[in-house]
């Protein structure tokens, strides 16, 4: 498995490096990746389906419990087969679809990276590894959608997809961390075997993971990015946006659904509701499209909703139906996308109002599209029918209403399938400049690639039992229940068949009365135009977000140094205050103090307060000196003669320095122009905080044992009786060395700044 991943990486690098020499062979080289996945899957098929997962472990950072773990069970194998089975024909198709160019080669490299990331995503058994591969698919999807980077619409569609799935991915990461913390493991197979108990954290974790899956699989209300993603070249749409990447969310809910549904009881109803809403909404929107590719895209949204609902439910029968639908959907939808790509490639349009008579001019393509469409509409004898029948049977066991919703969505599916076929290949009056295709040669990959996929739909539809062991083993791998459903050509006369046939008939009726549909659609459109639309919400939310960022940065980052300082000070005061107050602290008011302290203290306070208001610079210097000398006197009251001496010396020097500097400056401070009241408020806040902190410290004061040791050891160890001096030059000599270094650095800096000024002054005078 690791070798397969490395091969993808190698191929991608080779494509990027040798793009000049490769030309059209680029996609042939790219096909090596999915082909290797296919071979690997087939080689391990028997063992995995028999219930023995392939596991591979590379110890990476054992001390952090970070291992690269891969584990391919039958459930992962289903996805691997889809990735490889769709990947190989799509790569071969791309070789014909693109004209050789440097960009096409880079496109091939990106597709290869994507294929590798997708393989890693389904094979990874570690939540964080899964996340990394998940984001890799987001990034490659962004690059592939934005392939036509000269078009603004393609760029914004790429950004839309990347923002929505990227944001979902981040939410998912948060959820994974929460879940892994509660469960005590990041290994997925261990997590699903022992789901964490339902605490609030676990509930939030599941919700975040669900958001990730919903965005990735384009579920309501985040479905709008997928139709936009149709700006990508068709091979990318067929590969990423129908067959594989959008299945990543489904993969995830399928993998975790049983654990989640067992852990929190809101999971199943939420998943079912989201899926059902998406299913109906997508089908309805598909009916109103005129672009063939958009029609298919909304169809994909609808089908994804159905599969999402089944897979995420955590119910074995539903999961069985989901796996079957997933396989059939990948086959027919990739086929249809490739057909549209071929039409677009040959005629230059995908607008069904301009296409006419393609049934005769492109007969091969027509039959391929018909086969895939029959499977999509779930006509009996096709794979789509067998899969949908399995799903209906399971839903019927659940609740009849769910079947009714699913059947309604299937009716819409049938209707838009007919609309697709008729629009693409039928004869009709075209609005303007009709275009006609031309016959594709039998060996043309534009025909053979979708042809091979369509053939698979037909053959597997006739013998669906071939798929049963895989589907069954996959269901058992995630739910632990075997034989949860059946895959048969003809189910016999069971109630589910009635629902299937009813939706088929209903769909054909709707398709026959297209005028009726159009009028009903217009009416719904006028009503729903008042409702919020996912695309509009997205478009409006991005400028709003940018505006919010602009506003907040223009408030916070306003360029004013005092404002920045005030913010810092307020945070520095409020944060510890809140932290201390929540701990119900005790405060102790100390005794008043001696008369000497009151006299000195009064003097210092007087000088300090005067400092704040006096504007004559030299008065300020004298007041500052007064404060310093007052403090020096206070130190001697506290029994610190060394401090008193140092403070006296330093204060004298400071006054001299101030006098020297202020000599050059104007005699008075200019009057401030801005309001002083906020400054005063911040100042009082800080003062009050210091006072409170003092009271708090006073209550918590403990005699320091270090001091006792220093006092005792001063004479015997350092032969000095002045303990403060001994600490500075002996016990903590290195600290003093550091202090001197700081002092020297400051003096050098100051000298460097001032000496040129003095020199100039001398030469100037």
């Amino acid at each position: 498995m690791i070798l397969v991943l490395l091969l993808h990486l190698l191929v991608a690098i080779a494509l990027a490096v040798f793009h000049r020499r490769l030309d059209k062979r680029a996609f042939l080289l790219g096909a090596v990746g999915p082909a290797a996945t296919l071979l690997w899957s087939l080689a391990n098929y028997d063992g995995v389906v028999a219930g023995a997962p392939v596991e591979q472990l590379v110890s990476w950072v054992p001390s952090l419990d970070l291992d690269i773990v891969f584990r391919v069970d039958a459930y992962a194998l289903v996805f691997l087969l889809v990735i490889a089975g769709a990947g190989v024909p799509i790569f071969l198709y791309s070789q014909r679809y693109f004209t050789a160019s440097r960009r096409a080669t880079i496109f091939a490299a990106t597709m290869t990276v994507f294929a590798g990331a997708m393989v890693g995503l389904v094979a990874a058994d570690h939540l964080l590894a899964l996340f990394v591969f998940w984001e890799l698919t987001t990034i490659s999807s962004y690059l592939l959608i934005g392939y036509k980077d000269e078009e603004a619409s393609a760029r914004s569609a790429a950004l839309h997809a990347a923002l929505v799935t990227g944001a979902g991915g981040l939410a998912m990461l948060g959820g994974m961390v929460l879940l892994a913390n509660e469960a005590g493991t990041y290994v997925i197979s261990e997590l699903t075997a022992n789901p964490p108990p339902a605490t609030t954290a676990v509930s939030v974790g599941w919700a975040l993971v669900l958001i990730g899956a919903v965005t990735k699989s384009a579920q309501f209300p985040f479905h709008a990015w997928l139709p936009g993603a149709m700006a990508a070249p068709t091979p990318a749409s067929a590969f990423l946006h129908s067959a594989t990447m959008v299945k990543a969310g489904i993969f995830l809910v399928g993998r975790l659904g049983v654990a989640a549904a067992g852990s929190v009881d809101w999971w199943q109803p939420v998943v079912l509701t989201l899926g059902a809403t998406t299913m109906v909404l997508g089908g309805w929107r598909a009916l109103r499209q005129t672009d063939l590719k958009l029609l298919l895209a909304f169809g994909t949204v609808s089908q994804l909703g159905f599969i999402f609902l089944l897979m995420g439910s955590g119910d074995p029968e539903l999961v069985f139906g989901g796996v079957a639908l997933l396989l059939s959907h990948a086959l027919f939808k990739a086929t249809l996308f490739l057909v549209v790509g071929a039409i677009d490639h040959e005629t230059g349009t995908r607008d069904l109002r301009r296409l006419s008579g393609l049934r005769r001019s492109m007969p091969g393509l027509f039959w391929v599209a018909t086969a895939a469409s029959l499977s999509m509409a779930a006509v009996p004898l096709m794979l789509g029918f067998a899969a949908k029948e399995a799903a209906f049977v399971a839903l019927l066991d659940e609740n009849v209403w769910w079947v009714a919703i699913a059947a309604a969505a299937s009716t819409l599916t049938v209707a838009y399938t007919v609309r697709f076929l008729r629009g693409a290949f039928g004869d009709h009056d075209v609005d303007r400049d009709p275009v006609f295709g031309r016959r594709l040669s039998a060996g043309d990959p534009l025909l053979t690639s979708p042809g091979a996929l369509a053939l698979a739909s037909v053959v597997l539809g006739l013998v669906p039992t071939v798929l049963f062991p895989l589907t069954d083993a996959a269901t058992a791998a995630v739910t632990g229940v075997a034989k949860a459903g059946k895959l048969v050509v003809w189910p016999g006369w069971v109630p589910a068949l009635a629902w299937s046939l009813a939706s088929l008939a209903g769909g054909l009726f709707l398709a026959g009365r297209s005028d009726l549909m159009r009028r009903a659609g217009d009416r719904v459109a006028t009503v729903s135009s008042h409702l919020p639309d996912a695309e509009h919400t997205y478009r409006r939310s991005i400028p709003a977000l940018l505006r919010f960022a602009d506003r907040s940065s223009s408030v916070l980052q306003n360029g004013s140094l005092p404002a920045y300082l005030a913010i810092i000070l307020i945070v520095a005061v409020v944060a510890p205050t809140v932290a201390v107050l929540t701990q119900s602290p005790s405060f102790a008011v100390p005794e008043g103090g001696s008369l000497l302290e009151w006299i000195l203290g009064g003097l210092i306070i007087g000088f300090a307060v005067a400092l704040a208001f006096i504007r004559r610079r030299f008065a300020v210097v004298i007041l500052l000196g007064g404060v310093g000398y007052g403090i020096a006197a206070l130190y001697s009251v506290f029994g610190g003669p060394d401090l008193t001496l140092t403070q006296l010396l330093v204060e004298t020097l400071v006054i001299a320095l101030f006098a020297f500097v202020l000599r050059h400056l104007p005699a008075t401070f200019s009057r401030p122009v801005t309001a002083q009241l906020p400054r005063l408020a911040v100042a009082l806040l800080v003062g009050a905080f210091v006072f409170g902190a003092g009271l708090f410290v006073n209550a918590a004061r403990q005699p320091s044992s270090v001091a006792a040791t220093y006092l005792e050891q001063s004479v015997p160890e350092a032969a000095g009786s002045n303990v403060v001096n001994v600490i500075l030059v002996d016990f903590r000599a290195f600290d003093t060395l550091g202090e001197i270094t700081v002092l020297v650095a400051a003096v050098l800096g100051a000298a460097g700044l001032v000496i040129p000024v003095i020199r100039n002054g001398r030469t100037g005078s």
Partner: protein
Amino acid sequence: MSLITLAVAAILFAVGTYLILQRMLSRVIIGLGLISHGANLLIMLAGTGPATPPVVTGEIAPTVADPLPQAMVLTAIVITFGITAFLLALALRSYLLTGTDAVEDDIEDRRIGRLDRADEEPEVAA
């Protein structure tokens, strides 16, 4: 610890804060000096109250001051002096170069703040 000294420390902090929030660079430096004084006093307050100097002559008296905060404050006084000297030199240089003692708004930040409507409309698919 005494109430009056704590009050002195708190007022030094308050006045110091008021001054560093000014635009005049020289007032900011004075404010910084006041805050340093206040911090030093707080450290001393965290030690013992009024006491005899920590000088050992025979028996260690019970009224002796805690030497540890004193050593710390001594270091702090000297470092504050170094910083004040450096800042004064900076203020002088700044005044001689720009002709004003005031700290102007950061022009770059101002421009970012005014960057409001320029990029309001991102590309949106038609």
